[in-house]
Each structure stands twice: as structure tokens, then as C-alpha cells.
């Protein structure tokens, strides 16, 4: 019973929470908070259950739910999970639950905040689980709406600018995606009924049989348009400038979701839609993707080094880290793909942790200027320890999960693009540079008298940070479960793109 | 001197004259009371017509009954009209109709 509708439960449990929160009186703040906690906890547990009961040797989609929805256009309600989406679903479950606790000190309009938050969670699960392009698109757009308000209302001083920038940027991307989606639709035929279809699995099959649009230039244009749509989300240089602004202005929990989940959707879109649906174009443009990955890695790291805002630095570090994902995807090798997917997961965990950590210090000091601290490690030793762990994870220290992803990307890609990999590898130096420099400025040196009485990290904050830290260590030491989960699906993806 | 019989035409001339005087009064008088008087003249001109036609067109008293009815209505009308005049006076402190131009566009 549960497993028949498991994915629907995952997607719509937060939606139930959303309705309940709307029904609550606005001054019952703790009811609202705990409702949000419960209704994100349940999908998290369900996603763990999904992981536990998945057949990992099977490359296709599992827990499939397929119903006709809008029959006039042959649109389906079609959910399913495979090795590529499963880690993303688990990541979403985990981060959305922990972020509720990072939202605990939201100080106004709790009801609106948590209801929008729950809506956002539903949309995120929906994106990762839909197998109908139209449904995917709906969830993709649905995500935008709560995000806009969450940044625009509860954000920092320049929140409106940031929210509008985020909104317009993403919308520009989705318009391109919409056009491509319709192009796929009108060029597809459902073999059973002869009608057009949005069914991604069916579209994959047709792409495999070469039934799609014959003209090279149209396919290329479709691929590029789709790529830009996804690239904005990743974000790929030069479409990345919405990210630092959105991150800096967004409240802590939203930064975590933004970095941890939303950025993954771009790369996920490439793996779920671009690659299987236009495999020849994916191969044709792979070198370009690798170059963009290189630019992201090195450029992101150098620009991060120049930042004085703690959050902005981490935002640019995300740009740098997502470069590894693209490099791995461009490699078209099994090792590279594994590295890319691992890097996506790790980035969610580690960068999520970094944003939570910034939130901790921001709540106390009310600023994020890297030069405005000094010697914080004297006052907050546990916090300093967790931050150093997260920094080390982020700069790819072996033994933590970040390293596994990065080194696999390098190992997988070197065969194909040796020069690009060598230049990218200089990123390890710059990354170490900016993280350690930031650490030194904030935590080391003589203790700043101004922060003498600063409160130590509290239990709620530890509750959000420690699970992420443990995951980062666990997958650094024993990443095999991850590879078992994704292996079969990545092999299939690799076959689809013809390697 | 023969006294000429009074014919229907004579009544009608009287009634016409009376009606015209009434119209003239209604249209030209500034005083609302005077306008009301004009209206009374016009009504009574009509009454004369009714009675006259009743007399000259065969048996029956239908015309006279109508005239009586009309007189009663006229009495009621005067009462209402005077009440309106009084209430206008209360609001505007005048019954000069040239000043009552609130309908002016």
C-alpha cells in the first residue's frame, strides 16, 4: 500500500502540512513550526525507506505511479525514481527537514514563511520525481513562486533586488525550457495511440531509436536552449551572478535549500533530460561543457577569494564546486559520471553545512564581514571545529566526501580532456587559499574583545550541523553505498549517450 | 337681442382660454404658488371640457362623474404640491423657481 503510492506521499506530505499551516491561527508560532518539522520529517523518513527498499541492480524507474491527467494533451501524472534521482530525493528530504530548524528564529510572519516553505519542499520533490515533462515543468515553476517570496520578504537589506533577479533569471531559463519541451512534444508519437506525448521515458526511447527531429541545427538549437535553461540553475558561468545576490540576501535556511537542492536541479536536468533526449548533441557539445566547468572551477575559486562577505564567498565556492559536476558530466565516462553525481550530493551536504554555519555567526554578530571578526575560535571552540571540518570538506580534503567526488571527476575526465583537468586542478590550490584565509580572518589571531560574551553554539544548531558532518565523514570513508545506489542508472545513462 | 344658445364651441373656447392662461402662468410665474395656481387653471379647463362634452353628447353623467373625480384628485394634488413647496422653502429659504436650478447640468 505504502510502496504503491510512496512517491506521491513523499511529494505531497509537505503539501498537507502547507494546508494545515494555513488553517492555523497566525499567533500559534510553535504549532506552525512543529507542523513544518513533522511534515518535512515524514518525507525524509519515506525517502530513507525508499532507499532501503529500492532494487539497486535495476537501472530503470521504480515505485512508478502513472495516471492520465490532462487527457486532451496526453499529459500524465507520472512519478518514478532511479539511481540518479534517488540521491537527490534523499538530499532534499534531509536538507528540507534540517532547514526547518535553521528557520526557528524567523522573526515575523511565521505562518506565511512556513507555508511557503512547505510548498517549496513539495515542488522540489516533484522536480526530482516527475517523469512527465509537463509535470516536471509545473513543479519547476512552482518552486519559483515560494522562493521569490521567501527571499523577497524574509531576506536581507537588498532582498527585493535579489528576489527579482533570481525570479527573472530563472524564468528566462524556463521559457527556453518551455519552448524545447513543446518542440519535443510535437515531434513525438506515442506508439500505442499515435498521439503526442510528454512522457520522458517514452521520449528517451524515441531518442534512442533516432526518431527525433532530423535537422542537425534544430537539434543543436534545442540542446543549447535547454542547456541555458539548466545552466542558469547550476549556475554555469556566465549565468551565475544571480547566485551570490540570492544567497547573500536569503535567510539561512533558504540559502541552504538554494545551494543544497536548487543548484542540483540544473545538473539533474542535464542528466535526466538533455543527455538522454538529445544524446548526440550532448556528445557534440561535451568539450564546451568541460571548458565551462573549468571556468567555473578556477574563476569561481578566484572570485571567492576576493570576497569579504562570508556568505558571498561560500556562494562563489558553490560556483567553483559545481564546475566539477560539469566537468564530470562532460567526460562521458563511468568514473566521471559517478564523480559528478557524488559531487552533487556532497556539495549539497557540505555547502548546506557551510550556510548553516554562517547563519550561526550571523545570528550572533549580525554581520558577515570576514574582516570584522578575529579570534572567534577562542570563544566558540566547537563552532570553530565544525567550521574547519566543513571548510576541509569543501576544499576536498581526503577522508571527507568532497574529495571522493572531486578525485573521481579528475580520474574520469583526464583521459578525455587532460589539459582542462590539469588547469582545473590548480583550483585545489586557490580553494585551499580562500578557505584557509577566511578561516584565519574569522577564527584565528588575537581574540576580538567585541565578541567576548558571544554565545556558544546551541543544541538546535548542533542538531542541524552534526548529521551533515557525519554524512560528510561517512561518505568520505565509505562511499561504496552511494556508488551501489547510482551505478546501474549511470551505466544506462552512459549507454544512452553512446559510450 | 336674441340670446344666442350657448354651444359646445363656446365651452371649448372658454376652456381653451382658461388652459392657455394656466399654461402661461405655469411657464412664466416665478412664484411656485402662482405656478400651482396655473396648474389648477389647467385642470379646471379640462374639467369644463369633460362637463361640456357630457352635456352635449347624449344621456348619462359619465362626464360629470369624471369631473368630480378630477376635482378630488386636484385637491389631493394641491396638498402634495404645497407640501413640496413648503419643504423646498425649508431647504432653500425661497420659493422663487428661477433660483431652483439644482438640476442644472
Amino acid at each position, binding site marked *: 500500500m505504502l510502496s504503491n503510492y510512496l512517491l506521491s506521499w513523499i511529494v505531497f506530505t509537505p503539501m498537507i502540512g502547507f494546508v494545515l499551516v494555513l488553517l492555523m491561527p497566525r499567533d500559534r508560532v510553535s504549532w506552525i513550526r512543529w507542523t513544518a518539522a513533522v511534515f518535512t520529517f515524514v518525507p525524509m523518513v519515506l525517502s530513507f525507506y525508499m532507499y532501503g527498499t529500492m532494487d539497486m541492480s535495476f537501472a530503470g524507474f521504480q515505485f512508478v505511479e502513472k495516471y492520465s491527467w490532462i487527457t486532451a494533451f496526453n499529459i500524465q501524472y507520472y512519478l518514478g525514481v532511479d539511481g540518479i534521482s534517488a540521491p537527490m530525493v534523499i538530499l532534499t528530504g534531509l536538507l528540507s527537514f534540517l532547514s526547518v530548524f535553521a528557520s526557528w528564529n524567523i522573526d515575523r510572519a511565521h505562518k506565511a514563511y512556513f507555508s511557503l516553505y512547505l510548498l517549496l519542499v513539495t515542488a522540489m520533490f516533484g522536480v526530482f520525481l516527475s517523469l512527465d515533462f509537463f509535470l516536471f515543468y509545473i513543479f519547476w515553476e512552482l518552486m519559483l513562486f515560494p522562493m521569490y517570496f521567501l527571499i523577497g520578504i524574509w531576506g536581507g537589506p537588498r532582498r527585493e533586488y535579489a528576489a527579482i533577479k533570481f525570479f527573472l533569471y530563472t524564468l528566462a531559463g524556463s521559457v527556453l525550457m518551455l519552448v524545447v519541451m513543446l518542440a519535443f512534444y510535437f515531434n513525438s508519437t506515442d506508439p500505442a495511440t499515435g498521439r503526442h506525448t510528454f512522457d520522458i521515458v517514452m521520449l528517451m526511447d524515441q531518442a534512442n531509436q533516432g526518431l527525433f527531429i532530423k535537422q542537425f541545427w534544430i537539434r543543436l538549437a534545442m540542446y543549447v536552449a535547454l542547456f541555458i535553461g539548466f545552466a542558469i540553475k547550476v549556475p554555469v558561468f556566465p549565468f551565475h551572478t544571480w547566485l551570490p545576490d540570492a544567497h547573500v540576501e536569503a535567510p539561512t535556511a533558504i540559502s541552504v535549500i538554494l545551494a543544497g537542492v536548487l543548484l542540483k536541479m540544473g545538473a539533474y536536468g542535464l542528466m535526466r533530460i538533455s543527455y538522454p533526449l538529445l544524446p548526440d548533441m550532448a556528445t557534440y557539445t561535451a568539450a564546451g561543457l568541460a571548458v565551462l566547468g573549468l571556468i567555473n572551477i578556477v574563476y569561481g575559486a578566484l572570485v571567492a577569494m576576493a*570576497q569579504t562577505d562570508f556568505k558571498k564567498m561560500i556562494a562563489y565556492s558553490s560556483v567553483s564546486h559545481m564546475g566539477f559536476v560539469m566537468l564530470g558530466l562532460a567526460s562521458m565516462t563511468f568514473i566521471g559520471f559517478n564523480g559528478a553525481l557524488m559531487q552533487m550530493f556532497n556539495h549539497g551536504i557540505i555547502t548546506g553545512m557551510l550556510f548553516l554555519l554562517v547563519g550561526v555567526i550571523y545570528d550572533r554578530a549580525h554581520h558577515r564581514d570576514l574582516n570584522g571578526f578575529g579570534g572567534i575560535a577562542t570563544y566558540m571552540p566547537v563552532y570553530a*571545529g565544525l567550521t574547519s571540518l566543513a571548510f576541509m570538506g569543501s576544499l576536498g580534503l*581526503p577522508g571527507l566526501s568532497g574529495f571522493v567526488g572531486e578525485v573521481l571527476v579528475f580520474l574520469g575526465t583526464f583521459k578525455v580532456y587532460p589539459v582542462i583537468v590539469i588547469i582545473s586542478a590548480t583550483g585545489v590550490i*586557490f580553494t585551499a587559499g580562500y578557505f584557509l584565509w577566511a578561516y584565519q580572518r574569522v577564527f*584565528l*589571531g588575537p581574540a576580538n574583545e567585541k565578541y567576548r560574551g558571544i554565545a556558544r553554539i546551541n543544541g538546535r544548531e548542533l542538531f542541524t550541523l552534526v548529521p551533515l558532518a557525519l554524512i560528510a565523514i561517512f561518505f568520505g570513508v565509505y562511499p561504496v553505498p552511494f556508488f551501489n545506489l547510482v551505478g546501474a542508472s549511470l551505466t544506462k545513462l552512459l549507454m544512452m549517450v553512446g559510450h | 337681442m336674441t340670446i344666442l344658445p350657448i354651444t359646445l364651441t363656446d365651452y371649448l373656447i372658454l376652456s381653451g382660454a382658461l388652459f392657455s392662461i394656466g399654461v402661461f402662468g405655469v411657464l412664466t410665474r416665478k412664484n411656485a404658488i402662482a405656478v400651482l395656481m396655473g396648474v389648477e387653471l389647467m385642470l379646471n379647463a379640462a374639467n369644463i371640457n369633460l362637463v361640456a362634452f357630457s352635456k352635449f353628447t347624449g344621456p348619462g353623467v359619465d362626464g360629470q362623474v369624471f369631473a368630480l373625480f378630477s376635482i378630488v384628485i386636484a385637491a389631493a394634488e394641491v396638498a402634495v404640491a404645497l407640501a413640496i413647496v413648503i419643504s423646498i422653502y425649508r431647504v432653500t429659504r425661497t420659493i422663487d423657481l428661477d433660483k431652483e436650478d*439644482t438640476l442644472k447640468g
Partner: protein
Amino acid sequence: MYPFIEQYVWLVPLLPLLGAAVNLLAGSRLPRHAVSTIAVGSISASFVLTVIAYLHIVSLPADHRQFIDTAYTWIGLGGFKVGLSFLVDPLSVVMGMIVSGVSSVIHLYSVGYMHDDRRYSRYFGFLNLFAFAMLLLVLSDSILLMFVGWEGVGLCSYLLIGFWFEKIENARAGMKAFVVNRIGDFGFIVGFLLLFTAIGIRTGTWSLDFGAIQSAVGLVPTAVLTTVGIMLFVGATGKSAQIPLYVWLPDAMAGPTPVSALIHAATMVTAGVYMVARMNFLYALAPDALRVIAIVGALTAFFAATIGLVQNDIKRVLAYSTVSQLGYMFIGVGVGAFSAGIFHLMTHAFFKALLFLGSGSVIHAMSGEQDIRKMGGLSKKLPITTATFVIASLAIMGVPGFAGFFSKDDILYNAYTSPYGGTFVWLLGVLAAVLTGFYMTRLVVLTFYGSSRMDPHTAEHVHESPKTMTIPLIVLAILSAIGGYIGMPEAFGVRNVFAGFLGPVFASGVRLPEGSVPLEWALMGVSVLAAFSGIGLAYYFYAVDTELPAALAEKYNTAFRPAYTGMYVDEFYSKYIVGGVMGLKDLLALFDSHIIDGAVNGTARLGRRLSDFEGAFDRIVVDGAVNAVGNGIVSAGGVLRRLQTGLVQNYLIFAIIGMAILLSFVLL
């Protein structure tokens, strides 16, 4: 002899890791003696296990002295597998014993030295972590796992050099160590990526295990192997402080003194030498890479020694001497004499640990003073420290009979005879030996002998260190004195036990020419002479004619000043390399915020302009038409409304006129 160890090698690195975990997570709630017991106990247990592994291995026949213990599969991707596997062979077991043994001694010493530090448990946690990382490095069975330890020691050096982070200089030194190491790691990464790929596309086996590499390396062209060898060596220059990446090591003494001992002797800096020795089968096929290593090693040995001549900080002298001695080790492995390099690594571990711990004892006694110009005559007050320090100095200078003599001699002999070495490398090595004799004698004389130059307040407090500190000194002094006898040269008519034991590991390595006994005696004579000339000169300068050095320094100021400041290398790096990166990052940040984001905002502004224009069009043309109709009606109304006088009588007049007109139509 102890076959059980074949399944329990993983305990060797695991024990210090557990010790680190306990001390870092719960140490602040434990009493101090529990903290130090856990730390010293875990590393000592590792040492015992390593010794058992050694005993087991020697009990096996010489060509079967190797086993692999796989704990589990770390990364498994279809054909590509990296196990958490530990390789035990003569090389790794020797390294394991050096690392865990010297670390144990340093741990013990730290118990006394760090007794009053308020972050006691954290210190021991980091120290254990350091030992863990180094043991992982030496025991690993694949390059990738080795890289884990490789980076791990980098991290621990960062944590420990910057241990007293309240002083920003210490924090900076830690950061410098990590970042410079990362530059080396970049080379290391490129090296193993290239090797991995080169082997993979030729054999179809995608692996980073040493065994797999060794069996496939012959298929790879020499040019590729040379590149791989040099790139891996770039990693080694970072970790083992060679030109051009040695700059972090002199600053690394910012950490507590036992940490310096650990970094300079047992862990960290030896990693590069070990790596080259471990990859001997690769370097055997890449002679050009070996020549590069030998020359860089020789240059470093000489160059660092010249800087060491004039330093006044006791630890800084030792730091430059480490750089110089590491140069010797690279001469050794670079000319293909891998066992000689490892031999010197071992003897150096003994005497350098001793020198640092001895200097720690001096600094401890001097209440933190590190300037040798303010010491002098300490031998009376610190008898044990002085005696052990002198033994270590004799060993490092290569005085016959002490450990350093045998190992240094082995290296210089091979440097002269090996096809990858030659006279140039040998000569630099001999000159460095002269300089070593000089600066060590200077250090000993200025610190322990002559008249006291201490300020009276400090002098009152000078005292010998507690037993936990002196016992390690004595242990290390014994090793420094006799540790060399296991590797006596064949010219003495005995078997070189050390080289014989390591032999199987390097069997596939470089073939060196047969030894010639007279030549060996001659070269030995030259190096002994070199050492003694340095010693004699320094003795004359600092014990006999004590005015002379100051006068010379005065006279040849221009020659001395660069040496004081480390030849301006740091200044050069910070100006051109760090400055370059800093400039680049600022430039890119401006590019990002002005050009890229400028373009985005420009697009937005363009959009707004466009909408302003459209708004105007809307207002003027579209709305204009609508309004024109409205306005026409309004003005017509303005005219017509005059009819509406508001006077009922007028309306009646109109009605009557109208009626009259209608009637006139009807009637006329």
C-alpha cells in the same frame, strides 16, 4: 612468526585515529592524565604492532616479505577499485617503525612539554591524528590512499603549526604550510592522473594500486613516465621542503616544539622521500626524472645550509638544517640509491627529533627564549640536554661512528658513482657537509658553551627538564649514536644489513655500478675531512676568536644580509606569486561584479528602458486615441449642457415648443 598480524595491520593507523577521535571529541571532559595516556598509549600500541609486523616479515623468506591487508573496498566503481588496503613490505615496515617509534617518543615528551597548555587534549588529538595520517601514508597500498595520508599530514601540520592561533603569525605560518603543500599536491594530482590514464588506456586496467602500476609501468613510454616522475616529485618538493617549495618549513617552527620535531623528523617531510622510494620501479624507467631529483636535492642541500649558517633562532637553524638534510635524502633516492636515502631518512629521524626536542628543552628552560645570541654556557645547568644535543650534532655533522656518518657517506658515495649523479651533485653534497659542520658547531658552541649571555632574570629560572622530557632525549641519543651500525658500508668488510633488508623492494629499481672499495674509502675520507673542516672553522670563530664573526659580518654586510633573510625567497614569492594571485582575484572580482553582473543589470536596465518606451507609446498613441473620443464627448457635453438650466419651467417650454412643432406636423 606472528601471522595474525596479516589480518590486523589496519589497527596500526586506526589506533591513533581512535585516540585522536576520543581526545578531540571528549578530551576536554577527561582528566589530563587520561588524555595523555590515551594519546601515548595508542601510538605506542601502533609501534608495538609495527614491530610485530616487522618480526613477522623477517621470519619470512627474503623474496616473500610482503603482504597486503585489505580492510574493505573504499571506492568501487565497476572495474576501478581502491581498497582500504595496507601494504606491508620491508620499506613500509621500516617507515612504519620510524614513524610510530619516533612519534611515540615525541608524544611522551609532549606530556611534559605541554603540561600547562589549556588546550592540552586538543593538542594530543592533533598529534595522534598526525601520526595516523603519516602511518596511513606509509602503509597504503595505492597512490590514492597514499594521497589521503599525504593530505592528512598537510592538514595536521596546518592545525599544529597554528596551534597557538592567538598569535596571528602562527596562524599565518600554518596557512602557509598548507597552501604551499597544496601547490605541491597539485603536481602530485597531475602526476597520478597522468599515470592512471597512461596505464589505463594501454592495459585496460584502471587502477592506482602499486602492484598494478608496477606490473604495467613497462608499457608506458619513457617520456610519459618522466613527466609523471617529475610531477610526483613536485608533490614531494612541497611535502619534503625542497626548492622551490621549501619556504613553509622554516616558518613551521611557529608550532609547539615537539610538533616541529614531529614534522621535521618522523612525519610529513619524510613523505616525499618515501614516495620516491616507493615508486622506485617507475623512476627506474625514468632516468631523467631521477636526475632532476638528484640535482634539486643537491641544490637544496647546499642552498639551505648557507642560510642556516647565519640564523640566530635556535629552531630556525634546525629548520634550515632539515631542509638541507632532506636534500641529501633526495640526492640518495635521486641517484637511484633508494636504500641509502631511506637510511638517511631513518638516522635523520633520530637525530633531528633529538635536536628539536633538545632545543625544546632549552627553550623550556629559558622561559621561551629562542635567540642563541642570548644563551651561552647552558651546559652546566642542563647536563642531560647538552649531552644528548651534542650527540645529535655529531650525528648530523657526520662525525665517524655516529649514525649520520654512515648514512651521509652512503649517499655521497652513491652520488659520485651513480650514472644519475656525478661530480656536480657529489660536490654540492660535500660542500653542504662543510656547511653542516659549521652551523651545527656554531649552534652548539653558542648555546651550551662559552660565557652566559642570558639576562639575569631568565638565568635564575634555568633548570633541567622533567623526566618525561629527558627520557625521550636519552632514548633518541642512543639511537643517534648507534643507529648507523645497521647500515655499515661494505668497505668495512661487513654486510649492509639495512640495504639487504630493503633490497627486495628495490629489486626492480635502478642498477647501480658495483662498489669499489678503495674509491669508497677515498670518498669517505673526503666527507670526513669536509665535516671536520666545517667544525674546525666554526670552533675557531665562535670559541677561539669570538670577535671575528661580528667583524666579518660588519665587513661583508652585503653578503650576509640576504642569508639572514633567507635569500629573499619569501619576499620574492609574496611579491610576485602571492601578489599575482591577489591581483588576479581582485581583477576577476571586478570583472564579475562589473562586466558579468554589469551585463545582467544592463539587460535589466535595457528591459526597463524598453518598457519605459512602450509605456510612452501606450500613453501617447493608444491611450491618446481612446482619450480623443472621450474628450470629444466631454466637449460636446460642455456645449449641450447649457440647455440644462435646471429650471423646470424652461424644460416645460421646450416640451411645449416640441409638442407644438409635432402638432404643426400633424395638423399642417
